[in-house]
């Protein structure tokens, strides 16, 4: 597939502080690419350098064949941007705002149609300050679409939204992506990345620590599955649980056991065998599959702070 964004050795330094430390990645046309990481990892700085909002200290970014540093204005005309804390003029209504933004690209836009796409057509007379958090983000996406961009950049689009508004926004992003737009988004929500992104770059402390399809990241070797169950009578030979294939850790409290395994299939087979031989029954067996949270923990050695 064709790469619409190529980032090479991109770095940003503020004095002695390195916000982004020579990262490389590419985004394919038509995909949803996520940059996942905790606050302060360098996600926003990375995005803003590619958007032409912040000068790069070194390295380069090429968008649709154009060098961002050299052809900044051209690149800006090809992309749509939603900033982390989006803000617009006071005293103008949504329709007027979209028309002004279109004029900044020397374009005309059917503002009502665009508002309909983000389900705000009934609110066209309202001002941004009268909108709810979710509506504001949807409007901000509409404003990012006035120039029919090739790439849509979303910087933490659902931070601070309630669960319903988040799902609503996910649907909107999916819809926009299905219409053929490449989407690059940052997030510190694992579930968001899992639901939306085709590929994910995990960032921590100014570096990309892993980058792959969401599926592959979750299949990363060394990630543990947890099997949790109760037994119907006390285990005489509890220590044998530790010897089951794949098991790395056993914890128990009364009759409830928790096995950590890096090979869940083999462990389960052994566990059933052990049950038959020792004459106990497994009750409420639950498997907990690894999540991106675990991927992150595995990669960085620390939890994703929120």
């Amino acid at each position, binding site marked *: 597939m064709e790469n619409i964004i190529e980032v090479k050795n991109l770095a940003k330094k503020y004095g002695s502080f390195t916000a982004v430390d020579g990262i490389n990645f590419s985004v394919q046309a038509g995909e949803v690419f996520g940059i996942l990481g905790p606050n302060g990892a360098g996600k926003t700085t990375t995005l803003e350098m590619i958007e032409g*909002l912040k000068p790069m200290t070194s390295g380069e970014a090429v968008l649709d064949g154009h060098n961002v540093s050299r052809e900044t204005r051209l690149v800006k005309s090809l992309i749509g941007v939603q900033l982390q804390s*989006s803000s617009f*003029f006071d005293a*103008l209504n949504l329709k*007027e705002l979209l028309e002004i933004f279109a004029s*900044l690209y020397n374009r005309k836009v059917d503002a009502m149609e665009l508002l309909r796409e983000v389900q705000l057509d009934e609110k066209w007379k309202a001002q941004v300050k009268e909108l709810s958090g979710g509506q504001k983000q949807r409007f901000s996406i509409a404003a990012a679409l006035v120039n029919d961009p090739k790439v849509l950049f979303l910087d933490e689009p659902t931070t601070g939204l309630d669960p319903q508004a988040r799902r609503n926004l996910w649907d909107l992003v999916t819809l926009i992506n299905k219409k053929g737009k490449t989407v690059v988004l940052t997030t510190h929500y694992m579930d968001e990345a899992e639901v939306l992104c085709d590929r994910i770059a995990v960032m921590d402390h100014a570096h990309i620590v892993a980058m792959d399809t969401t599926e592959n990241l979750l299949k990363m070797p060394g990630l543990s599955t947890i099997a949790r169950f109760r037994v119907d009578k006390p285990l005489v030979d509890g220590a044998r649980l530790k010897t089951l294939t794949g098991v790395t850790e056993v914890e128990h409290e009364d009759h409830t056991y928790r096995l950590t395994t890096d090979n869940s299939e083999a462990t389960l087979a052994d566990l059933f065998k052990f049950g038959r031989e020792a004459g106990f029954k497994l009750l409420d067996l639950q498997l907990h599959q690894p999540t991106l949270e675990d991927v992150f923990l595995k990669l960085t050695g620390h939890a994703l702070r929120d």
Partner: protein
Amino acid sequence: MRTLAILTWSAIKMFARNKQALFFTFFFPILLMTVLGLINFDKTSKIDVGLVLTGPPNQATAQFVGALKKIDFFTIHEGIETDERQALVDDKRAAVFIIPWSLIPGPSKVTVVSNVGNPQGAATALNIISGMLDKTALSITGASNFFNVINEEVNTHHLKYIDFLLPGLIALSVMQMSVFSVAFLFVNYKEKGVLKRLIATPMLPSIFVTSNVITRMIVTLLQTTLFIALGVFIFHAHVIGSYWLIFLIAVLGSIMFLGLGFTISGIASTVESVPPLANLIVFPMLFLGGTFFPVDSFPAWLGHIAKYLPLTFFSDAMRSVMTKGYTISQISNDLLWMFGWAIVMVVLANITFGFEEKRQ
């Protein structure tokens, strides 16, 4: 061009929908003009005099009293002697005239009781009545006047306080509007990230600044026109000079203070820090810029500072054209200074103000 037109039109809409901006741009100066216009600084207050007639007046006395009552300077209170003397003691009269019933020159005695607490009023009253008595005496004796005093008023254009006030008030309003409307708006934009959102588009920052400058030029011309119209039609102010020149001065003044407004926008990081910062610069000019008091009336050291303030040149140029009908060459000194200040402010604005957030 289309982008500039749309942005300018939007900026005008935003200005017109901002109630606070409208209040300070139009209504507040009108309020100020009304209050100051109603207080009449031009008329000296009248002198209260008491008049005591000791008997029923004869023809000559009646004539004399009639003439006395026609004098604008006096508010005449007729009464009996004891009451009027008491009124004088209570400082309600500057003087009391006690006039005998038969006013015949020679034996008649007109007594003037003066209030030493009001020497000016008393002296004026005494002078006027002496003059009148002399005239009466002459007319009774049938002698003709040797001299006639013809009072010719020489106050070139009947200038009043409103004529002094109006040009200064225009300059002041243009300054306030230019500085505050820009500083509040742009610091707000900067703080809320509106400017950052704008430079995420291919728009050139200069176009956005230009659209806001054009908007404020239009507002400046509206202010000037409105205040002159009100001043002339309601307060009977005089405008003698060229209107084109007046508008030119207004626009130049506006550029000067828009530069200051953008400089403050560059320095202030939050909307809350705009009023202290802007007032630090603007407030002294309110009093020293020659709006309400002439700069000549300040003590010398203060006058030296006052006369170089941007607002002083602005209101001085305005006043010279409006009340004295000066031409462009006669106010060239003011215009050059304003031009100089405008360059300084615009350069400062370019140094301090930018769309990109400056990282501390």
